[in-house]
């Protein structure tokens, strides 16, 4: 593969990310070098790396790298992260933990007389369920009395989407995916009812900020502006602290009231069925030893955990149920699992978008997984979304060379529920057609019927590998 500048790395002239044969490099241009060296000398970067808050880095030999442009004096190499995810794929708890990391890094930086040039949520990634900061050039020396320049960006990319869920019970994902820079303070202010505006935090951060911004556009008001007071460092630190305290307490307004309701308890098969499923998945993971699994329809991460225990290196879980991914996140945190649960509507995955339609990559352009799990997923797409069964199977098989797919037949109470108020137009939704679709491009390595139900687990291996 030829070295190329990462399509998402163009905003900051002080350096760029290059991907060369799977390795990740960061160039530091002349305009960014002095700041970077000065920040590095404070010891901040090493401290953050030691605490697993900043991706590790080491100096690379620029002379041996053909892609390095003329104006570059320093090249860093970083370890490659298993998966790049975006804030519009994060659930509430992931976005919240990313926000807290951003504030913690800020507070730590100020102690070293360093500040940050921005507060982009895209500068935070997850390894397992742990947030980690990825932009080494976002730091620069702090100047006495300067403002929190990135405050507005922090509000739009972290605070406002969290408030949307915490104060109004609206999830941020669809909106954020459409508005890549986050949710504007003025939109949020318009949405919030008066009774939600009586807390000092909401009043100051949303209502006042919006009104001030609006007023600043008024030319007559701007003309009277005449004295610069600056922001004392102590006030800066206090503002970060109170923002942190506030965000730490935020919780979704609607917790507990989503599709899956009872979760683990709420399915159509017995406890033996569940342990049988776990054993099947564990066998699969033991034999295939996948580096990266996509668990599509991961629910609360129960079967991801089984696969990890059996030898899978890391798993990206996907589900469209917000409470499920928050619960899976909690499971990952509690058990320190290499599991990152993300929001996904499998019928409409994240596309290539942003500047040049390449800045933020679509789901498949970001990483290749070597296995998939698709448990109790197919009927949601084939019946819930009218996607032909064969197309569902082909899509799943195209994602990874190995995998386990569960077929839930029409007789199953969960499918009956989906069909309750509609005509059954799904003549082709049968086990025979399901297996025939798989066998067109893959072989069935093993199958098993889930006890206490008419569901079937199928372990496939694609023929082209």
């Amino acid at each position, binding site marked *: 593969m030829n070295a190329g500048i990462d399509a998402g790395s163009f905003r900051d002239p002080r350096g760029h990310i290059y991907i060369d044969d799977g390795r990740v490099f960061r160039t530091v241009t002349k305009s960014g070098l002095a700041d970077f060296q000065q920040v590095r000398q404070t010891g901040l970067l090493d401290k953050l790396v030691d605490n697993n808050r900043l991706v590790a880095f080491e100096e690379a030999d620029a002379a041996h790298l053909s892609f390095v442009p003329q104006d570059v004096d320093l090249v860093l190499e970083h370890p490659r992260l298993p998966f790049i995810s975006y804030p519009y794929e994060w659930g509430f708890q992931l976005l919240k933990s990313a926000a807290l990391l951003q504030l913690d890094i800020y507070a730590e930086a100020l102690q070293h007389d360093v500040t940050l*040039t921005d507060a982009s949520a895209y500068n935070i990634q997850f390894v397992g369920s742990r947030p980690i900061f990825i932009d080494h050039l976002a730091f620069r020396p702090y100047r006495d009395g300067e403002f929190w*320049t990135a*405050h*507005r960006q922090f509000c739009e990319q972290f605070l406002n989407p969290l408030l949307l869920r915490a104060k109004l019970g609206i999830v941020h994902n669809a909106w954020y995916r459409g508005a890549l820079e986050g949710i504007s303070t003025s939109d949020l202010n318009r949405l919030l009812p008066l009774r939600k505006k009586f807390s000092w935090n909401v009043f100051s951060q949303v209502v006042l900020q919006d009104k*001030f911004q609006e007023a600043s556009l008024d030319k007559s008001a701007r003309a009277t502006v005449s004295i610069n007071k600056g922001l004392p460092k102590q006030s800066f630190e206090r503002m970060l602290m109170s923002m942190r305290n506030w965000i730490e307490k935020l919780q979704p307004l609607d917790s507990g009231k989503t599709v899956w309701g009872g979760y683990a308890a709420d399915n159509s098969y017995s406890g033996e069925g569940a342990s049988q499923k776990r054993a099947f998945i564990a066998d699969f993971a033991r034999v295939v030893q996948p580096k990266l699994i996509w668990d599509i329809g991961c629910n609360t991460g129960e079967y991801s955990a089984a696969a990890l225990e059996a030898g899978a290196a890391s798993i990206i879980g996907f589900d469209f149920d917000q409470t499920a991914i928050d619960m899976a996140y909690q499971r990952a945190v509690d058990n320190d699992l290499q599991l990152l649960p993300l929001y996904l509507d499998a019928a409409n995955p994240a596309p290539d978008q942003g500047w040049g339609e390449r800045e933020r990559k679509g789901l498949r352009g970001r990483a290749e997984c070597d296995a998939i799990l698709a448990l109790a997923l197919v009927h949601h797409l084939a019946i819930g979304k009218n996607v032909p069964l064969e197309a569902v199977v082909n899509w799943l098989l195209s994602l990874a060379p190995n995998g386990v797919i569960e077929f839930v037949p029409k007789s199953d109470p969960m499918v009956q529920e989906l069909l309750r108020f509609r005509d059954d137009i799904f003549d082709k939704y049968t086990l025979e057609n399901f297996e025939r679709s798989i066998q067109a491009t893959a072989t069935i390595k093993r199958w098993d019927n889930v006890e206490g139900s008419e569901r079937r687990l199928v372990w496939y291996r694609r023929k082209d590998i």
Partner: protein
Amino acid sequence: MKKIIKVLMTSLCMIMLLTESAWAYLDPGTGSLILQSLIAGVAGAMVVGRLYWEKLKVYFSSIFSADGSKTSADASNHVNAERDSELR
């Protein structure tokens, strides 16, 4: 509510200047900067307010404590000394 905000905002605009954005990597947004000044101002006022509140509490406790217990008398002396030094 709208009127209060307008008055607050105009008075704040009168005492603010936003010249430093020239070197900023991103547009900080004027609303954000005015808000930060306000918050810094409110926090400052709260610190001053708390100082006087503590003094007031000590002052009243020294008046109302019938036995004139040693601690409150000491504290009020301390505050008085502080106040004297400020007056000087």
